[in-house]
């Protein structure tokens, strides 16, 4: 049992040691630029990745500004998980097909000043790629969190956050994606705290 636990932990640690630092820095700069132009950030994924997306949105829209929710900051982030309601998810899936559950709702919101974050361990989920292609046709910046060999998502993304693992290692990839998303939140939390102190 102990060996089993240690093996998993070793794999996560090794993936964390190989974080694509330059690409994460690019992602942070893309988000900074989106904030400066008052654009919106759409984030989405399937299954566990959708759970990561939901978690990140709550952190990024609220927790990033500290306990008082940042009343001293006049401008905040506008992060939106897509689709934003279960009703939209099931309506698109039932009426049109699962391929359109992200691209469909994205089309409703999309504007030139926006940014997207797509999460897919395989990088090949068709519904994710369709939404990414829609964003690319608008020339929006795309942050892609992928695993395994990165798939199509890693090729299409501007910030290519690939957690390289063997195929089917969902647990490892999603654990590290969670850490990367927390890192991004923490960076901006520290940034806004630092700005408040300077004032």
């Amino acid at each position, binding site marked *: 049992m102990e060996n089993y636990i240690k093996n998993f932990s070793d794999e996560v640690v090794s993936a964390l040691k190989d974080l694509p630092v330059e690409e994460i820095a690019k992602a942070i*700069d893309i988000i900074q*630029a989106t904030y400066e132009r008052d654009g919106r950030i759409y984030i989405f994924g399937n299954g566990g990745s959708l759970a990561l997306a939901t978690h990140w949105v709550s952190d990024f829209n609220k927790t990033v500004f500290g306990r008082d929710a940042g009343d001293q900051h006049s401008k905040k982030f506008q992060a939106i998980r897509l689709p934003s309601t279960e009703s939209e998810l099931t309506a698109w899936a039932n009426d049109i097909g699962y391929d359109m559950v992200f691209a469909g709702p994205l089309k409703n919101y999309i504007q030139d000043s926006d940014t997207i974050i797509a999460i897919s361990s395989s990088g090949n989920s068709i519904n994710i790629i369709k939404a990414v292609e829609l964003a690319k046709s608008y020339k929006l910046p795309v942050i892609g969190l992928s695993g395994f060999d990165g798939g199509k998502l890693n090729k299409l993304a501007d910030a290519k956050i690939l957690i390289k693992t063997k195929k089917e290692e969902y647990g490892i990839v999603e654990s590290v994606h969670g850490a990367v998303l927390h890192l991004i939140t923490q960076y901006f939390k520290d940034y806004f705290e*630092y700005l408040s102190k300077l004032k």
Partner: protein
Amino acid sequence: MIIVRAPMRISFVGGGTDLASFYRHYPGRVISTAINKYSYVSINQPPLIKKISVRYAISELVDHPNELKHNRIRAALLNLGIESRIDIGCFSDLPVKSGLGSSSSFTAALIKGLYAYIDKKIDKQELAEAAAKLEIEHLKEPIGKQDHYAAVFGGFNIFQFNPDESVDVMPIHLDFKKRLSFENHLLIFFTGITRSASDILTEQKSKTGQNIEVMKKMSDSVFDFRDKLVAGDFKTLGEILREGWSRKKTLASNLSNPIIDDIYNEGIKCGAWGGKILGAGGGGCILFIAPTEKKNTIRESLKSIAKKHNLLDFNEIPISFVQTGAEILMNSNY
């Protein structure tokens, strides 16, 4: 209505190596950052205006873009085949000829906005190329390409201009502490002297042959500047600027003048580690890198120097760095 903006920039090292007369022989490189001063363009299609309406310092209403006095708007409309029913407004955070690349940021914003107007999308590389081409090839401005790239990409970057006309964009990622700390060591003053970049660059261009060794050194020194920046060694950055400025002054006779020398020398005397004229030279803005505790002394002392030279528009410009590039802020034409 479409509202689009593009940032101006501060360029630290390598200006002039973005001229084709140099980079055809050796890769040109500049290191620069976009700042929170912008050129804004608004584009509208009012139902009752069938002609071309353009508003900037003056207002023009013409039947065909060919008749426009505003050369950048004329060229951009002709290139895109827009010949009627358009109303364009121009707004800027700072005056032209300030050395912060405002005319190129205007052109980048304009082209981005006109693409939106004809319902097309344009990516960053294409937009930077189109803006540079409009000013350099169509309007025959003797300028380099760095400002177009800085305005379109935003952020802190090294741009490398290759002999085959391609441009490599190498972003420099600074964390917020380093970014804010570097900003806090900068001082920028508008000298109140405006000049046209063209005159200076024309002379510099014609002398590229004799200047080539100096320019190679300027191009190579961007990497040193980047490494010292990432290390947070602002004192050395100041010294690099100081060396670069004295090197650059040898490139053309009108890059500096006695008033600018007076301002520059006073800044150094009051404790700045280094500085330079921003843009092509001859006037515009002057930049210093200085220890934070010396900033007030420099400010006060330069104010009296400016008074002595009767520079009524002399003023400090507070800035911060931005990641944002040429962006559409609003598009209600759907």
